[in-house]
């Protein structure tokens, strides 16, 4: 049960950071999301995001920061095995699920639904 509690608490806190960025600065939601994604990539660059995932599970993989982490992670893995060019070839290696699912389901959504207003 404690893993749910930790996921709840850590995920919730990342959302609070996002909320404070929105309420205390003049950032639009788009600015907040890009900031968090960049933060995820940078934290992973310092090797800090993986320990967070080990600790919080979905609390760290569900927020958008993990998208930055996955982008960096893919790039870095490939870079280690194939050198500099690996950065380019590896970036989307691990984020395929998120982006593909969003495109496919988003498209299907547009086939099925009409905006409700």
């Amino acid at each position, binding site marked *: 049960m404690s893993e749910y509690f930790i996921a709840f608490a850590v995920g919730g806190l990342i959302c609070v950071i996002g909320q404070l960025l*929105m309420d205390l600065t003049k950032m639009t939601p788009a600015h907040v999301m890009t900031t968090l994604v960049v933060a995820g990539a940078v934290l992973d660059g310092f090797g800090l995001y993986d320990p967070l995932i080990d600790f919080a599970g979905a609390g760290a993989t569900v927020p958008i920061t993990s998208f930055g982490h996955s982008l960096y992670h893919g790039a870095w893995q490939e870079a280690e095995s194939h050198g500099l060019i690996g950065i380019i070839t590896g970036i989307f290696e691990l984020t395929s699920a998120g982006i593909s699912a969003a495109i496919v389901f988003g498209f299907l959504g547009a086939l099925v639904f009409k905006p*409700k*207003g």
Partner: protein
Amino acid sequence: MNLHARVSRQTWQFTSDIRILGSGVSVGPLEGKGPLASEFDTIHSDNYAKQDSWEKAEQRMMKEAAQTAIEKSKLQSEQVDMWLAGDLLNQIITANYTGRELDLPMLGLFGACSTSMEGLALASALVDAGFADYVLTGCSSHNSTAERQFRYPTEYGGQKPPYAQWTVTGAGAAIVGKGGDGPKVTHATIGKVVDLGIKDPFDMGSAMAPAAADTLTTHFSDLDRNPDDYDLIVTGDLGKVGYAILKDLMKDMGYNMDPVYTDCGMMIYAPNQEVFSGGSGCGCSAVVTYSHIMNRIRHGAFKRVLVVATGALFSPTSFQQGESIPCIAHGVVVEGGA
């Protein structure tokens, strides 16, 4: 009485008996649940108004409002000389496509939410000057067409601040002509563009209040009048926030607005409807003016009303480029009695 049409650079006095012969409004479901619902001519139970896009729904409402106005004026559409209209969408497509349906000579207007009174002032001037016998003027807005153009897709989960406003889904139109016993248009004050540096596109009330203050001050001093000379002074769509600011600004100028002042954006929705600070959009002042206010004037409840429609003249491009929001307000005086 001075029968000069030009009172000042900004204020006009109509020299002949300019009347609103008839008016019509058509609204969406949320407005149809508001406190003025019983006075609306057409209420749609769904936001699409049985059309397949938001834009077509808005056009349908505008056409209905226009046709109701023509019918109530007991005219044939061939007798109408001019269609003066505008809306919030790019290239005022609602007004233009409605013009295509109505088959009338047309002049398109854009004054954002001030278009309602811009249209009424110009219609009265055209009739007064003899260029037209009957002018049809109207404007419209639709919550979803405005959201998707100015803000986000309608299903996007962005959080709006408490001072945001809710764009009214609805259209209002009126026929202006000479003679009869309808509400009489006596004066108009054309506003200047005022920009006091508000940049937040959600904060329209604060952005527009100074424009309304400028036009009101000009109007009162040009005609040597006070708020007490009116039974009702109503602004277009300042919402609760802009309403409070305007009262405060006018107090500074030495005018006590309290007893007679209200705002269309606060009248069109009930307090329990979740519309943040209140209604906005071209449709807001048009719908309230061309239903409730016209009815009250006809019934003699109001003898003299000043409607000041306020418009925020920005575009998605201008605010993304960090520009502040220029605003304008136009006032028209409508009187009752024969």
